[in-house]
Structures are given as structure tokens and as C-alpha cells.
């Protein structure tokens, strides 16, 4: 079995680690289930079922091939969708129509660090390019927008969603260029990789920071 499926390049110890990884994933689920049995309050049950989902992701990730990498994303999305639906049910049951209010965070790192962290993350994300780079750059921008001390004027950032739309269009153009004229693969790669995904994923995360920063600005009231 191992000779056929795993290439010779992979060291043998990595192949043997797979059994340990499977055991760890199942053990995560069992520990979370034991916690559910011990403490049956609804909120604890919800958080511990999320821990069970992490065990499922660990089982998927431990396979470690390209196909497994493709399977993690839909698995994560489906798990998140189920978690959100369940938490909506519990919120409607126990909190009623009114949502709880909250105090904005006040930490020193939010007052001193944002500019340096943002510049570092955005530059690093631009170097990475692609989906990962977009996520890194977007995290930096989101961190900057979420910080309380800087408090940028949110009206200046309102065009962000249209940038995301343009990035999406670029990605579609690049993707169809691959099929229509495969000789222009470099142009298609630049369009979809840099112009598309980076510009698309970055503003998506920035929008998140924009929304949270808006919440902070109005003192936690929605």
C-alpha cells in the first residue's frame, strides 16, 4: 500500500506519522465528547462541538496530498455553516430578539502597533501573491481598521467593496484566458493570481475590519 501511493521522496518517518495523526484527531473528538458529557450547559455544548469539528479537520489534513488540501476548504465551510446555524438557534432561544451589547477592547498593542503591523503584513502579502498573500495583506489591513486608537474615517474606505468586485472580474478574465488561448498563460497567471485573488481576498478581509471598526466607533451598539 505505502509503496504505491507514497512517492519515494517522502521520508519513512512522515509516512508512519499518519497513524499518530489519525489517533490524535479521533482523540480530540473523544475528549470533546467527554467534556460535553461532563458539562451540559448549552453554550459549553456548542463550543465543544466546534472542537469536534477541529478533530475532523485534523483527520482531513493529515492525509497531506493535493486532493486533501482541496477537501479541507469545503469541509471547513460546511462545518462553519452548521456552527452558525446552530448558534443562531441558541441565540434566538436564550437571548430573544435583542442582541447583547459589548465594550470595545482596550489593549496597548492596539494603540501603538497598528501602522507597523499593517505595513509589514501588506508588503509580505504582496510578495506572496495569490490566495495566501491576499489573506495576509487583508489581515494587516483589517488589523489597522479594527484598532481603536487610529480610528480612521470610515467614509474614506467605502469604495472597498467595488475593488473586490473588480478583482473578481479580473479573476474571471484570467481564468477564461487559460481556456481560450493557453499560449498567453503568463498574462492569465498574473491576471488571476496577482490582480484577481490578491485584490479580491484582501478587500474581503478589509471589509470585515471595516464592519468591526464601525461597531467600535458607535460604542458597540448596532
Amino acid at each position, binding site marked *: 500500500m505505502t509503496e504505491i501511493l507514497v512517492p519515494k521522496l517522502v521520508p519513512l518517518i512522515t509516512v508512519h506519522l499518519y497513524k499518530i495523526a489519525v489517533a490524535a484527531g479521533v482523540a480530540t473528538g473523544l475528549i470533546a465528547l467527554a467534556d460535553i458529557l461532563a458539562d451540559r450547559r448549552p453554550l459549553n455544548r456548542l463550543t465543544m*462541538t466546534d472542537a*469536534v469539528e477541529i478533530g475532523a479537520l485534523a483527520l482531513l489534513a493529515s492525509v497531506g496530498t493535493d486532493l486533501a488540501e482541496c477537501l479541507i476548504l469545503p469541509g471547513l465551510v460546511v462545518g462553519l455553516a452548521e456552527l452558525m446555524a*446552530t448558534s443562531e438557534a441558541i441565540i434566538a432561544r436564550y437571548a430573544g430578539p435583542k442582541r447583547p451589547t459589548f465594550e470595545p477592547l482596550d489593549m496597548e498593542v492596539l494603540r501603538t502597533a497598528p501602522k507597523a503591523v499593517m505595513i509589514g503584513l501588506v508588503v509580505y502579502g504582496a510578495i506572496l501573491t495569490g490566495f495566501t498573500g491576499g489573506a495576509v495583506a487583508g489581515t494587516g489591513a483589517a488589523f489597522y481598521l479594527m484598532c481603536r486608537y487610529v480610528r480612521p474615517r470610515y467614509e474614506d474606505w467605502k469604495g472597498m467593496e467595488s475593488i473586490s468586485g473588480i478583482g473578481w472580474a479580473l479573476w474571471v478574465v484570467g481564468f477564461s484566458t487559460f481556456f481560450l488561448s493557453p499560449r498567453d498563460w503568463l498574462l492569465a497567471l498574473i491576471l488571476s493570481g496577482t490582480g484577481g485573488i490578491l485584490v479580491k481576498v484582501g478587500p474581503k478581509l478589509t471589509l470585515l475590519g471595516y464592519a468591526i471598526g464601525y461597531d467600535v466607533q458607535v460604542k458597540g451598539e448596532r
Partner: protein
Amino acid sequence: MYPSGQILYYIPLGDIVPYISTINAVILALLLAVLALPIFSNTDIYVEVDHKIPRIKAKIVMPREDKIKAALALGSTMAAAGVVTTGDVFNFTLFLSLLGICNMGLIGTTVGDEFALECAFNYGLMCLIAGLPLFGGAALILAGTGTLSLHQLMHMPPGAGGWAMEYGKILLTAGVVGEAGVGPFYAVKVDSFRRIWGRYAFVIHLTTLLTFSRYLEILASLP
């Protein structure tokens, strides 16, 4: 070679290759009949008899609630149709999870009933917990054989995949049993049936049941 009888039609859809075989066609026809039931029936007053205190409760369903439930029933039936026709193990698990979400929405959208929300919460927790053996089983099958396509898995010799295949089959069975609410987990669904007030209980019941019968076919085709 195919345990489900003769293949009638391959649906040309990428590398997932859904197919309709003899048994699949029967299950699919039953599913579409289930979908037709809520569409063509038109009962807007639901009646419940409480045996402990002899009384009869009646509820007039608002059109908005009925519209939301019809949309969710449509989603649930479409997900079940995907489960029945798919030719890929991981796609099967994804459609099964989608079915669970839609069924939870069907239970939870009952207006003015707090117990229905609690039932939806319990059902959702069961679906989330069953996600571990479900996805884990699919991942183990992938690790054992290197593929997830049912068309390739059917042609493998028995015993292919080794311990990962056997363990994956056990985990996948546990996941499907939990997600579809069969057997010991049926208690999750029993409470909720009385809370839906009517014809959509059919949708939940039959989609999960037919899903499980489709899973038996998949289990027979694994090496």
C-alpha cells in the same frame, strides 16, 4: 461490478461523474414525489391533540413562515438528490451535511415555539458531532486507496487500502448514522417531528431515510 444494477446514464459534470443506476432511479423518483407532496398539498391549519390535558390546539400558518419552510424543503430535497446521484465519496458527505443544515432550518423556523428552537439546537449539535466520523471516514478512504471516485473504488480488488479502508468504512458508517438520524440517534428527530406542525415532517423523514438506503449501496461498492 456495480452493486446497484445497470448504469442507465452518466451525468457529464466534471470529475465527480454522477450517475443514475437502477436503484438510484427508484430512490430519485421517490424523492421527487416527496418534494411534490408539500407543493401540491394546501393545508394551512395544523391541529395537534394533547392527550394529557384533553384539548385540541390549532394553528393557522402565516404565508411567510410557509414560504420559508417551502424553500428549505426544496433545498433539503435537492441536497438529497445530490446524495443519491453523486459518484464521489467526499461529495456524498458534503451533500449530507447540507441536508442536515436544511433540516435543522425546517425545524427551527417554526414561529412562536421555543421548544422547536431547542430541538433544532439538538439536531444541529448531532449533525456537527457526526461531522467528525463523516469527514474522517472519507479522509481515511482517500489515504488508503488514493482516490475518492466511486467508479474507481468499485473496480479495486477486495482488501485494497488495508487498515485505513476498514477503519474508514467504520467511521463513515458512524457518521452517516449520526447525520441521517438513524438507529440510536433517532431520538433527536422524534421531538422535532411534533414541532414542525405538518407536512414538512415528511420531507425530513424521507430524505434522511432514502439517504441511508443510498449509503448502503455505496458501502457495498467500496472494496
